[in-house]
């Protein structure tokens, strides 16, 4: 059991987290945050392994990982 939390307000929509996830669980969303960026979105939560590579790649420390 693992879970990530993307801080939607801190996300700058760069997409680097989507590259990091070998399971391709993160996609770019369709809503624009208060900074004006399209933020990243977690899809199938059940499949997350908690490897934290998405969080490691995020330049804005917008992802927290729980395991």
């Amino acid at each position, binding site marked *: *059991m*693992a*879970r990530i939390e993307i801080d939607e307000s*801190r996300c*700058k*929509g*760069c*997409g*680097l987290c989507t*590259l*990091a996830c070998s399971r391709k669980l993160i996609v770019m969303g369709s809503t624009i945050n208060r*900074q004006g*960026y399209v933020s990243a979105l977690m899809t199938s939560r059940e499949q997350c392994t*908690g490897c*934290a*590579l998405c*969080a*490691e*790649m*995020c*330049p*804005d*420390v917008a*992802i*927290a*990982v*729980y*395991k």
Partner: protein
Amino acid sequence: MKQVFQKPVSLKDVQTHFCPGCHHGTYHRLVAEAMDEFGVQGRTIGVASVGCSVFLYSYFDIDVVEAPHGRAPAVATGVKRARPDAFVFTYQGDGDLAAIGTAEIIHAANRGEDITVIFVNNTTYGMTGGQMAPTTLVGQRTSTSPFGRNAAKDGSPIRMAELLSQLEGVAFSARVAVNNPRNLMDAKKQIRKAFRYQAEGKGFSFIEALSSCPTNWGMDPLAANARVGTEMCGYFPLGVFKDTANFHAG
């Protein structure tokens, strides 16, 4: 469930001004993580340079001195000599360190000052609008090399990590990248090593951190991230160029 990844304590919980996908943010976090790990936050004095990383004091929860352009290694020398108990690092861009600050970096390294230098090489002057730097790749178009850098006229890009590794005072010199998880994990390791060498009083430690500048490269964040691997790593190979532990075992 327990939290296995979180913001390091040495990093403030604030929004940075960095452009989307800029690796400066990633390197800030890696440096803060190393600080947490060594438990030096309370006695660290950072020396900021001039460039996009000028707001070091807004993002790190430590004491920071702001140095004039290129002079961070000279300022850090003074800080460390006055406060030998302090943990001292500079954080400098390539315009700052490899152009206007060439004299300061070479002599601080040659004197073997017991400081750590984080050198963020993004092949351009990011803050001022993407001018050509000594690290700009041959053929790279910038606002001051609109037809691409010309090696015959402008010289070839300087490889600082290799150049400094020739100096006796340097204890550790490595080049790292954060363009994919594998390189990033290695970057963590090398930054920790550079910090450890200072903690052990081994001398000058240097990390060249290959970085993207999506904005001035005219690329989206993913394309800029990819360029670090496809173009930069070819000319600026990743690796350790000097490690005194390998020269004087024990």
